[in-house]
């Protein structure tokens, strides 16, 4: 099962690389991502039935948490591939990229999907390899345009994330060491399930050290402050569909790593240590995002900083702990993925239309692009945590967890920060979206593909804002059980 | 029922009949203090009669408000006249309103007069209206506090109730807080009736006029009503002063004798009050408009002191 899921994007990628026309490559890409999505959903159902699936000599592994990540990756991947058709099609039509680059883009896109799926379904140490691979592939995607700024961003991304990842590897090695001390030198010492089972016997000091390295390492990749510095550059310079994947999914993948290790480390070090660290980093990320969002001039960077903020919120949720906190954090991963992708898609359409990323040079988007503009505004409200959209539910749950678990100061700060972020975010977006359009911008929305992609995400955002379907709820509860 | 309507009717007649007289008396007393001979105390009657015979000159800019205002104002003041006890304490229409309602009825009257002042489009009218409303705004809080001070003593704002209670208490009603409230109310009464030092009813210099500027555009019959309305209001304010603070002698039941006595006592009371006003008018100069808040804060503070001293004396 898992193998097929991993094979699908790889095959799609190869096919994309060897296809001829634009039409062909688009068809292959979209159908490939549909297949990936279907396989992903099948995996989710399977996991739902069998609890845990293990294949390939324990190297591949899927429990509810993995399935959850796979679900996020495949949904966002699917909509991003739809969006790519519209977005890259527009770029192609305007001669910004040629046929060759288009093919390269699609094949890298699917390899990127592959690496992210791998993050979800790999067993422990493989996680490190998979996350490093995501860095490598996405750096390549970033330099597709060979603009000065993209290269700069890609370099920073590459270097900083590799450094981070190296730390994570160190943390992993330490964990392995702690496990080997208990389990002996078997291959099992790297499996989630076997680790969890004996985690409470691990040496706490080593696990503390390991957790610190993991937190810095995957935290770098997840964009937790103060290691987030590469993030705004990378997310704003990547092609927009890739930005969506980076912000919406890749960060979650890194968070996934942190949460996995959090579970293990907590069993050994006690909750106070890990939780406090997560709360500190979470608050720091939220706090750092505030000034940048308040005084932002580039809307893609705005979205990127918002991702820093949301990763902080997830860390905070895990740090607050308890069923509520973890539930909120896990739900937030999904909600953030959907909403942030929507925002990036909207930003992408605006970018295509205006060919500038300066907030000051854009106005009246609702007039020139009514559908995009409306969804962008609604997305803004959603991403800043206004009800009745899904992020509100998860943020509220996290906040409630903070209160009920006694982290009142942190919870109040959290609330303060998100209110400030709301003000900044909304101020910037309303400058772009409302008012009269700048002269020379003609009326008309972007291609249907982009709007359909946004529409699909919109459904998730609104429905999850008022209703959590029971299967989905059960699934998250199972993830919560795994994490606790 | 019939007797009550008769009493009410009688009260209105008395009010209408006495109010020009009060103006005349005040003017006469003022003249006495200024060592002048002064006009007859019946001069206001002559004035009104003369005005009623005259044609009205009406500005071409006005709307129906201008025509309606005197009538509505006059009616509002007369309605207040049915609530304010003059010679009998249990007023038949006292159910229709209390002291607060009287205040608001005066406000209604003032509101329409001030509206009319703006209708002709003259600057003087606007200025008068603005100042009149300004003074009214300053008066209001002090007035409300003094009403509270009075009501605290009696436990009601119903005017009949107040006069009956105070009159039943006799001289024992006189107490520091009673007197404080009286002085506060007196200052308010001066402001409400447009007397020096707040307003000079005798001035004919447009820039210093307040009430007079407001009704500058009126002439003839309409002016007669407006003037009469002002006089009635003045009488009512004095009756309030008299019958809230010194209601002794007021009739508490319908009866020819008691009403006759009550009327005489009432006349004496308002003449005394008129004399007080006249003394104040001759002994002070008109204050600058923007010094008036000070005056009314004095009243406000007096009412507040009255309130506090009541609470202290009566315990609480």
């Amino acid at each position: 099962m898992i193998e097929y899921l991993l094979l699908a994007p790889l095959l799609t990628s190869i096919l994309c690389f060897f296809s001829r026309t634009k039409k062909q490559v688009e068809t292959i890409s979209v159908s490939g991502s549909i297949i990936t999505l279907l396989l992903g959903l099948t995996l989710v159902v399977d996991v739902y039935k069998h609890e845990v699936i293990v294949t390939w000599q324990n190297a591949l592994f899927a429990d509810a948490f993995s399935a959850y990540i796979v679900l996020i990756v495949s949904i966002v991947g699917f909509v991003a591939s739809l969006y790519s058709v519209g977005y890259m099609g527009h770029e192609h039509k305007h001669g910004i990229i040629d046929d060759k680059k288009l093919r390269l883009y699609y094949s890298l896109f699917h390899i990127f999907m592959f690496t992210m799926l791998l993050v979800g379904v790999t067993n422990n140490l493989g996680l490190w390899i998979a996350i490093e691979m995501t860095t490598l592939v996405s750096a390549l995607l970033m330099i597709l345009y060979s603009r000065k700024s993209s290269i700069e961003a890609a370099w920073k991304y590459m270097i900083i994330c590799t450094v981070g990842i190296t730390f994570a590897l160190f943390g992993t090695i330490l964990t392995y060491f702690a496990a080997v001390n208990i389990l002996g030198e078997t291959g099992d010492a790297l499996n989630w399930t076997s680790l969890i089972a004996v985690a409470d016997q691990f040496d706490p000091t080593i696990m503390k050290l390991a957790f610190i390295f993991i937190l810095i390492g995957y935290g770098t990749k997840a964009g937790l402050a103060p290691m987030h510095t590469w993030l705004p550059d990378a997310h704003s310079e990547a092609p927009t569909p890739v930005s969506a994947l980076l912000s919406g999914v890749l960060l979650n993948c890194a968070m996934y790593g942190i949460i996995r290790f959090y579970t293990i480390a907590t069993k050994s070090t006690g909750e106070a240590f890990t939780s406090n660290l997560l709360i500190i980093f979470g608050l720091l990320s939220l706090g750092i995002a505030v000034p940048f969002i308040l005084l932002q001039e580039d809307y893609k960077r705005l979205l990127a900083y918002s991702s820093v903020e949301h990763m902080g919120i997830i860390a905070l949720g895990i740090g607050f702990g308890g069923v509520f906190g973890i539930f909120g954090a896990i739900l937030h991963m999904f909600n953030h993925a959907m909403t942030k992708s929507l925002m990036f898609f909207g930003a992408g359409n605006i970018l295509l239309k205006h060919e500038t990323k300066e907030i000051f040079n854009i106005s009246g988007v609702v007039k020139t692009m009514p559908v995009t503009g409306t969804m962008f505004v609604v997305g803004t409200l959603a991403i800043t945590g206004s009800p009745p959209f899904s992020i509100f539910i998860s943020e509220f749950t996290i906040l409630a967890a903070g209160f009920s678990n006694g982290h009142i100061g942190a919870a109040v700060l959290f609330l303060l920060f998100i209110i400030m972020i709301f003000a900044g975010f909304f101020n910037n977006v309303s400058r772009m979206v409302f008012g009269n359009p700048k002269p020379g911008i003609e009326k008309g929305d972007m291609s249907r593909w982009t709007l359909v992609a946004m529409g699909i995400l919109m459904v998730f955002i609104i429905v999850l804002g008022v209703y959590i379907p029971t299967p989905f709820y059960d699934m998250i509860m199972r993830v919560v059980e795994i994490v606790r | 029922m019939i007797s009550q309507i008769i009493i009410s009717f009688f009260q209105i007649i008395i009010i209408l009949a006495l109010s020009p007289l009060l103006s005349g008396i005040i003017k006469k007393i003022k003249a006495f203090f200024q060592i002048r001979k002064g006009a007859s105390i019946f001069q206001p009657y002559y004035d009104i009669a003369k005005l009623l015979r005259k044609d009205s000159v009406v500005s071409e800019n006005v709307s129906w408000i201008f025509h309606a205002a005197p009538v509505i104002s006059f009616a509002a003041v007369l309605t207040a006249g049915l609530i304010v006890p003059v010679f009998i304490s249990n007023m038949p229409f006292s159910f229709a309103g209390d002291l607060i309602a009287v205040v608001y009825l005066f406000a209604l009257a003032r509101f329409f007069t001030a509206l009319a002042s703006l209708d002709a489009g003259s600057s003087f009218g606007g200025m008068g209206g603005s100042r009149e409303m300004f003074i009214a705004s300053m008066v209001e809080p002090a007035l409300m506090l003094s009403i509270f001070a009075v009501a605290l003593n009696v436990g009601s704002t119903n005017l009949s109730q107040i006069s009956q209670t105070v009159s039943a208490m006799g001289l024992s009603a006189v107490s520091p807080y009673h007197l404080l409230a009286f002085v506060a109310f007196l200052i308010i009464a001066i402001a409400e009736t447009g007397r020096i030092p707040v307003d000079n009813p005798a001035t004919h210099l447009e820039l210093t006029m307040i009430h007079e500027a407001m009704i500058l555009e009126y002439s003839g019959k309409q002016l007669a009503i407006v003037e009469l309305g002002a006089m009635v209001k003045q009488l009512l304010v004095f009756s309030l002063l008299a019958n809230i603070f010194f209601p002794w002698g007021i009739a508490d039941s319908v009866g020819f004798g008691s009403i006759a006595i009550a009327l005489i006592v009432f006349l004496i009371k308002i003449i005394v009050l008129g004399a007080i006003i006249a003394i104040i008018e001759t002994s002070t100069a008109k204050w600058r408009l923007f010094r008036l808040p000070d005056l009314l804060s004095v009243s406000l503070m007096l009412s507040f002191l009255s309130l506090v001293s009541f609470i202290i004396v009566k315990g609480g």
Partner: protein
Amino acid sequence: MIYNNLFYGLIIFFLIGAMLSIVFNKRDRLSTYVSFLSAAIASVFGIIFSISVIFGEPFSLSLSGSSFLNFGFFIDRLSAFFILVISISVFAVSIYSIGYTREYYGKKNIGYLGFLYNIFILSMILVVSANNAIMFLIVWELMSVISFFLVIFEHEKPETRKAGFIYIVMTHIGTGFIILSFLILGGASGSFSFESFSAYGSTMPPLLKDLAFLFALIGFGAKAGIVPLHIWLPYAHPAAPSNVSALMSGVMIKTAIYMFIRVFFDFLGADVPWWGFLVFALGAVSALTGIMYAVVEPDIKKMLAFSSIENIGIILLGIGASMIFFASGSPVLSAIAAIAALYHLLNHSIFKGLLFMGAGSILYSTHTKNIEELGGLIKKMPVMALLFLIGVLSISALPPFSGFASEWLLLQSMLLSFNSTDSMIRIVLPVGAAALALTGALAAFCFLKTFGIGFLALPRSEHAEHAKDPNKPMLIGMGIFALLSILLGLLPGYMVTFLDRIVRDFAGASAFDQPFSFGISGILKIPSTAMSISTPAILAIMLIFILILLSMRFIRDPSATRVYETWGCGQPISTARNEYTARAFSKPVQIWFKNIFRPVRELRASYTVSPLIKESFKFEVRVEQIFERYLYTPVVDLMLGKSRTIKHIQTGSIHAYLAYIFGTMVILMLYIIIGGSL
């Protein structure tokens, strides 16, 4: 069963209105009729529903949601009362809107407006009927967001965008505090349902209770517009289309009052004395501040918005008094004060709606909101002027109109403080009454100015010159409100008995209980104190006097009237330029409160040949918004300044970024070493 149907009917018609107006959004006229008629029908359902709940049993309905998020409604008499207030307003405003939106035909997307309008009202109704905190927060914010979109409906104008921004930020801050308050309550009661809030809320430890109270006060206060959280209101309400302003000012801010009562009485038990005093003081400050700014404001809609702050203040005086009495153990007095507050709330929703619609009509036919450019409208738009005058008289609390009845009752409820044994209450409440009196007088001043300058004398501009009465639907909408203003003023006794049914539930006593009881019918009376008014009697007496006066031929003799120009010291200067301006009219008040207004005056003269020969003068007077200047601006500046400093960490240098990671590592290492060896 019938409840269910009525309630569903109400919701369905709003949804139909919303959906159909989107469907027909290309056809202006059709979507106008569909959306607003549908809203009107829904509001009729709302009126019937709420009345039947008030006279019947509380209604509850739970929708099966997931185990995590569940939705349900609980409508007791208090909720029903607010649904009634909303529905009445919506009915009239919807009819008005049919006419008003003609203004936008071809210019704006009416379908979009209709959609937002219907959803907005629906969200308000859901706000007052939610039965748990999460659902409440969702619909509460939905209401805020939709109203935000309505505020920026004319988003082409920069000031509208600014208004919208301030509004949404303030409301968001408010929501933050509400969330805190609910979290405290939720933490204590272990659930987010309102039922458990009211079961456990009052048993919380005092500190938590105080915090929950304060957070709720700030949170809902931001929506209600109590000073100093009011700053959004004078921006947002004028910016919205007038029909929406009527609803925002008339009913939306009242939903916060609903929550005040719900939280303070129902959830927290209202048994802490200082709460009431705080609310009371805030009410007084809001009322005074609101009306002071209203007096000097030349923009009609902005003036009305300030006046809404004032009226919220008045309502809060009532709520505060009610809380004070409640905490001091006099539930009957508490009930009376609460009745007064609710009465005023209902009245305000109607006359403020009427006035906003009037302002909308002025805007519709003159295209200006600036009172200095109006004048003479009473002759150009006679019907509208009459209706507006009724609104003006009501809001100025002049007998026998509605504002008078409720303010009278409020003053009486304060006066009843002499029955209290607590000297604090006996001193504070009269002072509040004095503040209320000042407020009332200034309100009269303010609206006299508005009507006098705006409607009387000569037109001051081209705009006003060509005004004419608005179309029928607009007049009908306003007419309904004008009629209600009169009726509510004339039926104080009935209203009090009606409101008593509602108040009984939360104040724990009926105003009819001994020793106070209200007479029914047209007389409003508190027997033990003999205090009574009867507005019908006042009206009747006045009418009799007026008829007598008019029947006297020698008083009103048309043949004896001569028309001539206005007297101007003998000079024929009867032009609009010589009229008294609104600014001049309000000048005394501005000077009186100059410490608060801090007026800025500028006189600029330009000349061509010599400085002695001036060509033109420009005189400008501005009034300072002190809360903005001294409270909000410094905070925002500080925040932005700090942000600018912090932003330097993103230097662009990869070395610095790596150093951050290095630093983080070192710090955490030290943390481990310290933690590890100790």
